[in-house]
């Protein structure tokens, strides 16, 4: 049964000729006679609804990375393939609970999840409870994108690992960058009304107060997430506040609409963001957003540091011409999880978790990243990049526009203290 499923999956992916060549399917087929049970990893994110595009891109990257690094080279743990099982949580905490049940009944023990800190919190709590009640049946949460600090601070969990810098780390870098700009005298904060949006607001206010007490916060606005049809009324307020710059943690459709409304209103001020790129956002902003929109993110944008990293982008583009490598941290997360599996020669979440703690790993970008054992938070280089069409080797949305890194901070300088008091399970 399992074997026939695997066969259909392999042959299924071989039907696309380009994919077949890039993945070396021929090689896989010749090996299927000795195929073992695949290592199954769940990918739980919105695959339908308002935020579907982000979730689907993440899934594409994870699947591609699994094939690119492992399945095309004979698998892991002595010939086992990695199978990614998509679970659509519609970015709703309720749906997440249901999908978690499904993951359990499907015998999935590693869950990749990234979108929305509210969902990540729910999942983390659900997993902790489940693991406490079902020893030997534990589940591991690989959070590649939810950046509410609380997940690795007060609410940290042994079963949760975060592969993205959290909001306070990113804001520390971003406010350094803003503080260096003497022209900015006032700042407008606008964000989605949920945990992450609140963190952005609180931390920005606090850090700007420390670093540049002369910058006045002229607005601090929250709007419901994914509910706003038209941002123009908000932009009217931004204009009338006389702000010199805007900072927002918005993502997805909320990010595009906000940026478009600001640009359409003729307001010519810089916009500092977390997520204003890829998935149609870059193409939509285009020329009008040039040199005005900046992002804080981990790793680097253009120019990419190593040939291996560039080659990964090129091969991804061949297999998925309409998609981009939006979140290389997904690849880092997968590689580190697999490294932990290889090291322990097991797929047991507990063993993997122990192996991940304090792991130092060199990414395909040639940079060493560190998973801190005490709170399961990753540390790596952080950058501020600008939306432009000059010097862009790898663009986004095939638009000619992309990100060029302007400011870089090495891993050591991004490290913040954590208030995490982790409860460690005993075996």
């Amino acid at each position, binding site marked *: 049964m399992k074997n026939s499923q695997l066969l259909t999956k392999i042959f299924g992916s071989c039907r696309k000729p380009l994919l077949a060549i890039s993945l070396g399917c021929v090689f896989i087929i010749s090996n299927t006679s000795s195929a073992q049970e695949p290592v199954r990893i769940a990918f739980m994110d919105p695959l339908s609804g*308002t935020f*579907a595009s982000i979730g689907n891109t993440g899934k594409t990257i994870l699947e591609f990375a699994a094939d690119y690094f492992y399945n095309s080279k004979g698998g892991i743990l002595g010939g086992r393939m990695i199978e990614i099982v998509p679970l659509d949580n519609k970015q709703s905490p309720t749906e997440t609970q249901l999908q978690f049940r499904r993951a359990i009944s499907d015998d999935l023990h590693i869950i990749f999840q990234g979108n929305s800190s509210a969902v990540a919190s729910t999942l983390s709590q659900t997993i902790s409870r489940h693991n406490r009640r079902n020893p030997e049946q534990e589940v591991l949460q690989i959070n590649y994108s939810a950046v509410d600090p609380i997940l690795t601070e007060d609410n940290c969990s042994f079963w949760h690992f975060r592969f993205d810098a959290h909001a306070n780390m990113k804001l520390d870098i971003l406010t350094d960058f803003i503080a260096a700009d003497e022209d900015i005298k006032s700042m407008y904060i606008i964000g989605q009304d949920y945990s992450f949006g609140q963190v952005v607001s609180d931390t920005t206010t606090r850090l700007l107060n420390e670093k540049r007490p002369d910058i006045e916060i002229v607005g601090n606005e929250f709007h*419901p997430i*994914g509910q706003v049809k*038209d941002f123009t*009324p908000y932009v*009217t*307020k931004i204009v*009338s506040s006389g702000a010199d710059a805007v900072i927002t943690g918005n993502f997805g459709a909320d990010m595009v609409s906000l940026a478009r409304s600001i640009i359409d209103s003729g307001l010519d001020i810089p916009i500092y963001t977390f997520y204003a790129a890829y*998935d149609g956002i870059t193409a939509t902003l285009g020329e009008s957003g040039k040199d005005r929109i900046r992002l804080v993110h981990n790793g680097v944008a253009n120019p990419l540091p190593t040939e291996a990293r560039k080659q990964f982008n090129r091969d991804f583009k061949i297999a998925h011409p309409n998609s981009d490598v939006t979140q290389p941290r997904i690849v880092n997360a997968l590689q580190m999880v697999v490294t932990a599996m290889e090291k322990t020669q097991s797929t047991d979440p507990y063993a993997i978790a122990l192996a991940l703690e304090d792991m130092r790993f060199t990414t395909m970008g040639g940079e060493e990243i560190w998973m801190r054992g005490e709170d399961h938070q990753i540390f790596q280089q952080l950058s501020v990049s600008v939306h432009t069409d000059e010097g862009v080797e790898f663009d986004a949305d095939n638009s000619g526009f992309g990100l060029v890194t302007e400011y870089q901070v090495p891993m050591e300088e991004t490290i913040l203290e954590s208030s995490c008091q982790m409860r460690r399970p005993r075996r």
Partner: protein
Amino acid sequence: MLEVLIFATLNGLVTGFLLFMLASGLTLIFSMMGVLNFAHASFYMLGAYFAYSLSLYFGFWTGLIFAPIVVGVLGAMVERYGLRRVHQSGHVAELVFTFGLAFLIEESIQFFWGRDTKNYQTPELLDFPLFTLLGQEFSAYRGFMMTISIGIFIGLYYVLTKSRVGIIIQAAITHPQTVSNLGHNVPLIFMGVFGMGTALAGLAGVIAGPVLTTFPGMATVLGSIVFVIVVIGGLGSLAGAFIASLLIGLLQSYAIASDVGMPDLLNLLGVSFERGHPLNDLWTMNLPQIAPVLPYLLLVLVLIFRPTGLMGKREE
């Protein structure tokens, strides 16, 4: 502060008129068939996507004219070959049919156009500020949106009340049998109205796509609010839908523009709470934060105090 007020009014009117283009079709179809068309906002989304694709090859203006026509024809086909058959099985079947159709359209759009945001831009011809008032720009495109929607409103009003076609439609809504006996083709009228209603929704999508962004969630974002309008205005009442559209457009816009909230109210009452209070979220809530929820609050209030809606007729 004055400019905020003026622009809040203008923005409210733009949103209000846009909502009316959707609500008018929905309420007409309801009064005709007695069924809420759940797929109505999906036709709005289809309009935006068709116009986007057409604009890639022939420019924005071609999209503006042809996309609504395509959507209207599609709507008419849905009525002719779908709803009319389902109609025989009763209202519940029709409701479920339109519900399923909404999903089908959303999934098809994701299938053909993908899930990411589409780069649908305003035409260059309208890419200038119409006027600048107290440091704020009002874009020509928003003026254009408003002109189109007011034009549609006047046209619709004229056709329905003054023209022969309108009189027959009105008669067919209340007394289909009699109209049929008088020699008019009632099913054809129904198909026409359905097509017209969906074409209006398509047109709304065409003009809203560039400013409200074209993405697969756009129907969901606007869909629920249109139902709210139709219910608040009174099911089946065109005048009610008009008033409710403007009311909700302005209500949201003013709420966002305002800067008042619970802290102000508490200050006025001389009460204060500590930050760590368990109900802290409630005490620090402000009006802009809950602006998008206000229409639903209004819906609940209307249903409690005036169940027929503002202009709805009492059911016998």
